[in-house]
């Protein structure tokens, strides 16, 4: 009888690896910066482990792909907030990776206190990586009118200009950012061992779970994180200030290059201290650093006038909201990737027609994993995949095939990573490069001239390359 366990990447990896080593589960290959996704145990031949983004773990355990999982309680509660009948059992608090979820507002914004928030008729915008908990919070606090921006990251930089509140997580000991004040602490969390309900009832997991539970170590001496400063909020951008969003993460170097070439001076970007509000030489422009995935939605709802993101994320947004005002203004021609449909090399599938046959033959339907939920959904619809379900992923998507998904919609530069994971490309969806996006009607707005000027400067910089 095999036992499958889902293990976290990211913030919990180091401590979890230490515990598992002490528990002597024999899962070699689980250590920080590991390049493996699949692990087998020398000690327990039936034990199989896979490494996931933490946010995926409660979902993978709830749907029964994994018997056990280790992840923060915050992600468990995020799932349960929307799907209270999920088949999850919280087995035990592992006592490390402690932190809290806080509903924050900006010191600078004159933001509402919770007490008067419900009385205000204006829409209260809440930015968060935890959209379900944010919505539950809004309902239980009886906010009269609210909207939730589900984010990939960087929620703390949204208030006060782009959201009245942000629901953010903080590790224990990590000071709250000095620009933000907590309105309410939603919950404390730490690493939890969880199980699938049916596995918990039907399988004997006790040997594994008790080994993990017994492996208690003094916590790692962690450096106390420095005060996270997201930068000083600029006074609420009024009048014709153009609000520009530029990407964090691995899109930073090419963006920096482009800005340099265009002669746009941006100080402290990329920022070593996590500053998300760099200053710029461009007059009448305010800049924020946010996730490229979140940009199209933020441009559509008017939080930003311009953003540098990928065409893939613009499409993802437009497939969800076909009449969205967010459009591509300029192709920046960098960061070229292909968005492709991928299956395991072991599958007898070579094109979308084979895929259709596979989908119609299966009883439970085709599992389509992707970070691009709406692109994946459209691909499945356009190719008449019959019964299918889209499994949203938060990174490391290639690890989902073949056990936890049948088809993957993913971006690739050279295809090498895919080949290394024994995957093959069966379809090309489109090509994506970095692009400047804005609102359809921006030329006609009073910021129109300035927006046009920025676009011209960037265009000249792009053309220079040729």
């Amino acid at each position, binding site marked *: 009888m095999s036992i499958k366990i889902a293990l976290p990447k990211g913030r919990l990896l180091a401590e979890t690896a230490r515990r598992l080593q002490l528990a002597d589960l024999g899962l070699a290959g689980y250590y920080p910066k590991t390049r493996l996704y699949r692990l087998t145990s020398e000690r327990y031949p039936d034990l199989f482990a896979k490494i996931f983004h933490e946010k995926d773990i409660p979902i993978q355990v709830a749907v029964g792909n994994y018997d056990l999982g280790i992840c923060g309680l915050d992600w468990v509660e995020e799932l349960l907030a929307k799907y209270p009948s999920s088949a999850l059992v919280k087995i035990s608090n592992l006592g490390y990776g402690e932190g809290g979820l806080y509903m924050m507002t900006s010191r600078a914004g004159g933001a509402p206190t919770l007490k008067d928030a419900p009385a205000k*008729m204006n*829409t209260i915008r809440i930015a968060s990586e935890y959209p379900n908990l944010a919505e*539950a919070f809004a*309902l239980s606090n*009886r906010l009269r*009118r609210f*909207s939730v921006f*589900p984010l990939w990251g960087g929620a703390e930089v949204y208030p006060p200009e782009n959201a009245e509140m942000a629901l953010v997580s903080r590790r224990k000991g990590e000071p709250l950012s000095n620009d933000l004040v907590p309105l309410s602490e939603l919950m404390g969390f730490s690493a939890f061992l969880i199980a699938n309900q049916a596995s918990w009832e039907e399988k004997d997991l006790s040997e594994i779970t008790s080994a993990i539970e017994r492996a208690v170590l003094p916590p790692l001496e962690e450096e106390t994180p420095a005060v996270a400063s997201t930068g000083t909020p600029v006074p609420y951008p009024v009048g014709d200030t153009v609000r520009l969003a530029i990407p964090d993460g691995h899109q930073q170097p090419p963006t920096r290059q482009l800005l340099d070439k265009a002669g746009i001076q941006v100080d402290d970007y990329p920022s070593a201290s996590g500053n998300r509000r760099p200053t710029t030489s461009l007059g009448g422009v305010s800049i924020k650093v946010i996730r490229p995935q979140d940009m199209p939605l933020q441009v*559509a709802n008017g939080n930003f006038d311009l953003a540098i993101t990928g065409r893939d994320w613009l499409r993802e947004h437009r497939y969800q909201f076909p009449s969205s005002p967010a459009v591509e203004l300029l192709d920046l021609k960098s960061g070229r990737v292909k968005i492709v449909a991928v299956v395991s090399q072991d599958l007898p599938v070579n094109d979308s027609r084979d895929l259709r046959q596979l989908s119609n033959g299966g009883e439970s339907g085709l599992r389509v994993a992707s970070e691009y939920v709406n692109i994946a959904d459209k691909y499945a619809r356009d190719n008449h995949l019959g019964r299918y379900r889209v499994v949203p992923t938060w990174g490391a998507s290639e690890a989902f095939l073949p056990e936890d998904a049948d088809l993957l919609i993913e971006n690739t530069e050279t295809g090498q990573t895919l080949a290394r994971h024994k995957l093959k490309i069966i379809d090309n969806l489109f090509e994506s490069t970095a692009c400047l996006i804005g609102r359809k009607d921006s030329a006609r707005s009073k910021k129109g001239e300035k927006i046009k000027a920025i676009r011209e400067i960037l265009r000249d910089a792009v053309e220079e390359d040729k």
Partner: protein
Amino acid sequence: MRDLSPAEMKVFGQIEGLFRDICLKWGYQEVRTPTIESLHLFTSTGTLTPGMLGKVYSFLDWDGWSGERVVLRPDGTIPVARFYIDSMADKGLAKLFYITNTFIFEETGKENREKWQSGAELIGVKSVTADVELVILALEVLQSLGIEGVELRLSHAGIIRALLTRLGLSAEEQATLFDQILEGNTRALARLKPGDGGQKEALTLLLERKEKSTRFLREVKALSPELERPLNNLIKAAELLEALGYDYLIDIASGRGFEYYTGVIFQLSVGNKKIGGGGRYDALIPLMGGKDVPASGFALYLNQLMKLLKPKTELKTSGRKILIRAKADLPEILTEGFKLAKSLHGAGYSAEIQLGDEAPADLRWTIEIQDKAPRFRLTDRAKKKHFSAPSSAEIQQLLDKESE
């Protein structure tokens, strides 16, 4: 979500028809509101409890990039109130009724997540008479449907609120407790510390009593001066119903489920099944941004009513139903068949063309159309007699004569 079969739709149609007839007779007009509404319509009123809002079907629309969600209508009254504010606010008085589905998630999967209700709203009148009219209207519908053993329970939102204000709680705690009581959790009270002057005990006692007359309410009046108005209100409604010969039960704890009630609340049940309820909700329209307009209303739960009704038994062979059978697959024969069906419908018959091999069992008459003379052949299946005629007009005359 569940299908309604032809047999169930027969019952459904019967309830719907009767409800519509009776409402029209009382001077109410029908409205139909959209299935999808903005979520903020339901959150902004502060009228659905957070427990209920956690179970609505909300999602982002195709143009929902602002992050504001839409919702499958979770309640029948709020959309009608919105309609009144949007389109009828200048009319003052409005008597409206609706037959609609509502959507609320139900975890166990045992109950239906799509529920049908028929309701009436009386907007613009603030009087006990209006409340009593709605009770009588609801009871008239149930009586006409032949539903027996209907129990009427009366309560008043003002009584619970008045007592809560005496418990020395903060506004927030009061709201939470009111929610809990409305969600049926009367035990929430037990967790409170004993208050001054036995208020908690009085409230607990009041919530536990179920009486067939208003007499005990007079005793409660002394507890608090704020109780006087709601108690008088409830007593007046009860006495009016009593004078009209209706039985009732005073059950203060019965007013659960919705927070928007401000006055008399009534609940209708058969056995332990709730089949309807309603009450006064004077604060709802101003909370939604409308003028200070009072209102009250009720809804009957059709899914429950359908279980209590059986389809009316029909004659096995209906005298007015005719099956038309084309004996050959020729254009002129088929044309004759469809023309004849239309002509029979005009004369008040039910006539259908036979498609497939099986003939419906409950038919008395068949008319066959042949490609040779005599073209039309009528069969009376009850009397086992046959007639023939060369034209559709003549066969119809024969039918008229024989079916008299």
